[in-house]
């Protein structure tokens, strides 16, 4: 141990690849990339042990810009490829980058199965509520009635909420953040990295070309305090300027209420404490209707659960222990054999 030369500390620059970044100027993807590159050195994982896997979409170009291993796969299939990588080498740290189309339209099934299996992956879903790369069709997260090239009279699909979906799939870690808030985003990236198992981080990302301003109603500085709530484990669910508003449970109707402290005698006592381990609360927070409620950002849900790759490894080890290293000769000669001489 004493002989190990400490690796030189890496910096953000070390995580930049030699390729020109080719997103549209102003795209929210830039900020996410910068924050990921910023957080990477902190995590202490050597670059060669990092793999970024993605599907197809603007967001899925991400791996090209990271100076790590990268696999830009095919549309929707990144979770499956990532799972194969982890099954082959659980030692690698695998990040998966996907979009709302890639991850929830064509790839929804793989995402679901990867979440329920709790494969140890860090999943970043860039939700811009649009198909960017194919130039602006509505996506499964676009609002009902959205007018796009493929829905000139308004889309007829009700959207799916990525975090609610993840909770429905029994994900063990569900969090939400937003491209423009570097502090929050880096914090969420750290939590995502730290969680063992399938960590699902939805990131609201502005596509300034095809869906500009999709999140302005709560992303703009003026609205941020009032229209988002940053949930923190064990802390009261307060929001608004000076934390004057909060969430309370109406236990008759089993639903959340957004209340103002001091109004109608509401006290901080009544405000719910956030509990990351409570699936019901996570479910309610994820799907609060906007703008009646603020948008919940932060770690909505996080519990420990055995990982798929961990169980695979354990089974492999147990089998080795029980049977010893496989003996091909013995296998071929097992059962009935006969000799011809």
């Amino acid at each position, binding site marked *: 141990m004493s002989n190990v030369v400490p690796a030189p500390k890496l910096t953000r620059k070390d995580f930049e*690849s030699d*390729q020109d970044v080719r997103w549209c100027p102003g795209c929210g993807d830039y900020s996410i990339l910068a924050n990921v590159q910023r957080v990477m050195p902190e995590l202490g994982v*050597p*670059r*060669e*042990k*990092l*793999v970024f*896997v993605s599907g197809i979409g603007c967001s899925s170009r991400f*791996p*090209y810009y*990271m*100076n*790590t*291993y*990268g*696999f*830009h*796969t*095919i549309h929707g*299939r990144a*979770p*499956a*490829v*990532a*799972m*194969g*990588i*982890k*099954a*082959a*080498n659980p*030692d*690698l740290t695998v990040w998966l980058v996907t979009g709302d189309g890639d991850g929830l339209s064509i790839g929804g*099934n*793989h995402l*679901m*199965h990867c979440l329920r299996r709790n494969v140890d992956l860090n999943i970043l879903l860039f939700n811009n509520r649009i198909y960017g790369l194919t130039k602006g069709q509505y996506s499964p997260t676009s609002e009902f009635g959205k007018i796009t090239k493929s829905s000139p009279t308004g889309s007829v699909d009700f959207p799916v909420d990525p975090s609610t979906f993840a909770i429905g799939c029994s994900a063990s870690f569900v969090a939400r953040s937003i491209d423009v808030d570097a502090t929050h985003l880096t914090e969420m990236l750290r939590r995502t990295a730290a969680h063992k198992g399938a960590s699902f981080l939805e990131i609201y990302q502005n596509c300034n070309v095809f869906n500009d301003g999709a999140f302005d109603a709560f992303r703009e500085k003026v609205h941020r305090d009032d229209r988002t709530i940053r949930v923190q484990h064990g802390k009261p669910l307060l929001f608004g300027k000076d934390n004057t508003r909060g969430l309370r449970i109406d236990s008759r109707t089993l639903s959340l209420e957004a209340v103002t402290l001091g109004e109608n005698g509401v006290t901080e006592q009544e405000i719910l404490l956030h509990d990351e381990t409570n699936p019901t609360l996570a479910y309610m927070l994820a799907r609060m209707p906007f703008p009646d409620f603020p948008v919940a950002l932060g770690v909505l849900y996080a519990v420990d659960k055995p990982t798929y790759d961990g169980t*695979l490894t354990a*089974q*492999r080890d147990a*089998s*080795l222990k*029980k*049977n*010893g*290293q*496989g003996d*091909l*000769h013995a*296998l*071929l*000669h097992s*059962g*009935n*054999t*006969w*000799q*011809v*001489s």
Partner: protein
Amino acid sequence: MANPEPQSTPLPHAAKEVSGAVVRFVGDSGDGMQVTGSQFTVAAALAGNDLATFPDFPAEIRAPAGTTYGVSGFQINFASRDVFTPGDSPDVLVAMNPAALTTNIRDLKRGGLVIVNSGAFTATNLKKAGYEKNPLEDGSLDGFNVFAIDISKSTLAAVEHTGLSKKDAERCKNFWTLGLMFWIYDRDLASTIKWVEAKFGKRQELVDANVAALKAGHAYGETAEISHFHYKVPPAAVAPGTYRNIGGNTALAWGFVAAAQLAERPLVLGAYPITPASDVLHELSRFKHFGVTTIQAEDEIAAICLALGASYAGSIGLTTSSGPGIALKGEAIGLAVSTELPLVIVNIQRGGPSTGLPTKTEQADLFQAVYGRNGEAPVCVLAASTPGDCFYMAIEAVRLAVKYMTPVMLLTDGYLANGAEPWRIPDIADLPKIDVTFRTDPEGFHPYLRDETTLARNWAIPGTPELMHRIGGIEKSFKSGHISYDPENHELMCQTRAEKVARIADDIPELQIEVGEDSGKLLVLGWGSTYGAIREAVQRARERGLSVSHAHLKYINPFPKNLGEVLARFERVLIPEMNLGQLVKIIRSQYLVPAESYPKIQGQPFKIDEVEERIRLVMES
């Protein structure tokens, strides 16, 4: 083969020597015909016969008892000479109920022996089988040697002492039947008794009952008028060695285990259950201690993608499926072509199109294998020709995949998957190592650097310091591996990928003539599971003096280098296939020879007779 001989009356008990026989066991799904057939097989194998077997399962899991669609069958061809197929028409048909009789009697040789369980010929069962009259009584079986025995009753009597319930007791009737068949073919009961003991282990009453039934059936042979039918099939002259009976899917699974050991790399199988491929998943999932990881994926797309992910990470990625599942993998195979990662895709073909005939065999996915992708996406295509050959072709698929950094599609089919044959167990030491070298040197590295001879790119796996790089399905620069939209580069890359697969031809055996001369009037060219039927048919045609030879393709893309020459040395070429003529089109397009197609697409393998007859017709035309 000319047995049983109905007219002759040999002395009872004196076993007449015959060169071989084809026996088919048929009964209700619940009648245990597969077990009976397997045990009969083991005994034949232990007696030194060469043999081949084929089970025929119903499509339904467990159809209502007595129905025709619930009939389950098992056929064995065993002989004192080389055997290449499970046989055309049975010499002996064992039918456990009317449904089994009605669905199988038309296949029996004229004059063949029929053993039926008359106890199952109740009014209800006759009706379920669609008989208006009892065939045992209405003379419709004239021309066969029919032995109607109340096997149910005899079994109950034989096992009465064990105190089993009637239901359980009757279940032993397959062992009674097996006992009788053992008597007829003069087999030793020992191996089956051992099997019964191992199988029912702790439940002594079941051991006792089944053994008692077996012995009772055997004893019955001695006493009844059936004792005329008593044969001896001497051992075959086979190469020395240790043998076992092996089915195609097992051989395939073991071949991959062997390949992984020879390559000293872990194997990762991504699979989604589908008939007739599921058993490969089942079998491989037992081998965790061999470094085999099996993942039952959510669908076939995930299955191939995770296998590809595993290859990317340095394991041997494998995915197994059948036609409809392979259709779903097309897009991902393209990604494997573009990223030039080793990947083995096995298609255990079944009847198509669409869901088709899931439990039946066919070879109609050849076009899909060779051509079924978007863009210029060449993959190496191999085909196994016998159950035992599946073992070697699995190893070959892995060897070529890792050596050429290419997806390899290995074709087998339902007939190979479920069929079985005696197999000389290879010496592990004789199997050639598969060399896998990962790139580790950062000097001058880029991911699409190629080996000059094979054109394989270097395999640089995550975890290797200083080799961080990005790959994907967009076209890449020949020179740097980076994304490139350059027109000339795209053409160069398309040609390079094609050339790389073409060069595999330098690394595979030339096509051999299996039977017959190197040139002549007619070459019968086959591929895959038609091997046995073609081989025997050509042999027989030659015995009748025809100038015909047999060659068999195990490498389909690329073809063996000498294929063109071989074709040119024959006046005509006939290609029997279980499809409407797929190989024949590929051969014609490549060599411009007027190869003729002999298509059969009935969910059933070729019979030797059919191929022989076609050879005759072609030679006459």
